[in-house]
């Protein structure tokens, strides 16, 4: 369901040089640098060098790496990355299901679940802050509550947990009939899982779901998560009283969610 589908090209060297220059020219007060892909850990040691360079050039900037977490099965690599990143390093890792075969199915790779789980433990052991990302889809939404319980029992060390609405683009369209589900179908499971985690004081948030799809008591968990260059609002949103706090919709998605309505 990748919304940034992988390309079978070796672009590592070329992009790496570009990124070095970007870091060298970045303003010193930059609050955050995101490192994403594709899968950034495919850079291997170059990723550690890049992180070390950011840390050296921009000592106060938070580094956010988005990774499937599988490379962190290598404890030594994980320790070296953690050392390079220092205390302002966050790694976002997608967690598709607590059931390994469902996770593997969504990740499109057999064995991914086991590697990611060990990777999460290695990241925690190295003291790295983890953002656990649950991209909500037709395969995993029935398990949101068991997943929340699983996180509490098995991954209580994560920094925060983000339930993320899916962008209807990339592989999400190609595999649409297997994975696409309208948010209104999973809102009850989403809310129960968020409630479960919030009651345990976990930092839990909801990305990419417009406020009008959530019951009022759950709107406080929603974040304005869609970047300004790819969000949009519908005409009916102009009548909405909470538009200013809403993430809106992906302008890149091919159709809006069902059930949108202005809030008085």
């Amino acid at each position: 369901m990748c919304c940034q589908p992988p390309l079978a090209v070796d672009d590592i060297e070329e992009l790496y040089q570009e990124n070095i220059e970007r870091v060298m020219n970045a303003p010193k007060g930059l609050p955050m640098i995101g490192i994403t892909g594709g899968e950034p850990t495919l850079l291997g040691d170059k990723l550690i060098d890049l992180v070390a360079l950011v840390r050296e050039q921009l000592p106060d900037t938070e580094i956010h790496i988005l990774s499937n977490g599988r490379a962190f099965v290598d404890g030594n690599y994980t320790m070296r990355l953690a050392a390079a990143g220092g205390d302002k390093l966050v790694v976002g890792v997608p967690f598709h299901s607590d059931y390994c075969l469902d996770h593997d199915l969504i990740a499109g790779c057999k064995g991914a679940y086991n590697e990611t789980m060990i990777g999460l433990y290695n990241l925690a052991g190295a003291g790295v802050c983890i953002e656990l990302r649950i991209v909500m889809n037709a395969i995993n939404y029935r398990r949101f509550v068991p997943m929340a319980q699983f996180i509490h029992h098995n991954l209580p060390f994560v920094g925060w947990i983000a339930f993320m609405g899916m962008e209807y683009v990339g592989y999400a369209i190609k595999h649409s009939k297997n994975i696409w589900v309208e948010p209104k179908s999973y809102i009850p499971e989403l809310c129960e899982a968020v409630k479960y985690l919030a009651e345990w004081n976990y930092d839990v948030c909801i990305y990419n779901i417009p406020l009008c799809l959530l019951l009022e008591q759950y709107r406080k968990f929603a974040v304005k998560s869609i970047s300004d260059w790819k969000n949009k609002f519908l005409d009916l949103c102009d009548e909405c009283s909470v538009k200013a706090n809403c993430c809106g919709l992906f302008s890149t998605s091919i159709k809006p969610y069902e059930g949108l309505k202005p809030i008085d």
Partner: protein
Amino acid sequence: MNYHLLPFTFTRISNHEVLVNELGDMIISPFGTVYKLVNREPVDEELFKSLAANFFVSDTAIPVLSDIYALRLREKKRFLDQFTALHIFVLTLRCNQNCVYCQASSCNEDCTSVTMTMHTMKKAVELMFKSPSPYLTMEFQGGEPSLEPKLLRYGIELAEEINKAEQKNINYVLCTNCVDLTDEVMDICKQYKVMISSSLDGPAYLHNTNRGKKDSYEKVVAGFERARSILGHDQVSALMTTSELALDYPIEIVDEYRRLGFRSIFLRALNPYGLATTNPDWTDYTDRFIEFYKTALNYIIDLNIQGTFFIEEYAAIILKKMITPYTTGFVDLQSPAGIINSVLVYNYDGYVYASDESRMLAEFNDYTFRLGHVDEPYENIVYGKAAKNAAKYWSNEALAGCTDCGVRTYCGADPVRNHSTQNDLYGYRPASLLCRKNKAIIEYIISLIIERYDEVMPIFKSWLL
């Protein structure tokens, strides 16, 4: 279906089959689930996914994530990591009260030769520092330890002196009835931040009857106020003991604790030690205690539903083992047992015992759990004959009647209790009243989770944060 079963136990509660793995993770499932799993018959798809995710079944004989299983098990047994943290010093058997259920064989204030010598205190403090634990709790008991202020001060100041080099984190606790907190005792408590742990059985009529005095309640409550005003509100805690008479007053006891400004209560059953063994019918008492406990717990849950935050401590201990990945340091529900692993007792007579209950047995000439003398080397005490003997029976994973118990992970092993009530450290579970009580309470808590999930879970979670 082709899969392997991982270790778990199960029991039937509230028309459900409750499966519990070695980590204390609990799966609530329909009747017949275990039969189907054993015979590899299909079960509900989502249930099967939960069983696979939570280490109940595995597609390989050794789960690929066995290292994670091991890390989680280590967390559940963390109380073993640093060895003995709680060190109880029985300063004296002298007491200024005469409680009907006294478990400690206390004697009159005028008694002589029932008080710890300075030499014993010195040796005991030195032994305490032999423990590898970076956290030490030095707890003073009696009799009434506040009757021995000089010994109390000597012990604390010696610990402070040694700790200049050892740099451990030390907490001090004074277990006192608060009846006669002199300026001298209060000065010590203030200077060294000593916590006060006291006893209050409930409303005045109940407390005074239990204590065999007309005015104990008034004195104790005045003592609480005095200690709170000098040391701070949260430096004072109280424990209740459920006498036979108390069994009829669950609501009144909880209300009394609230009225006195406490935010929790520990509903504690009588122990069959000391004077308390004169109680006539322990089976009847145990059954009535279980009902008493349920009534009080339900009342406390109702208070919380209505917006009053109030904790029942025993349930909170069990819940921590049940609905979190963590464990507690509570010595009575541990496996391996809390004796020696978590607690050592230095008695006024110069001997070291495995637990508070162990030294109470010694008052009746039963020295089974006397580990050694303070003048002996540390190793002789914690690795000695008595310790080795007790260690054979201190893991409920390996005791008949416990090993296959559905709620074993939430319970503990207690060879001292087995010995004192059944004259057998191993114990015979079918006739064990401790087993009967713990099982009933643990299963009742699970039944609340099954039957009233949405109501009780937010409350139970709030007790553990």
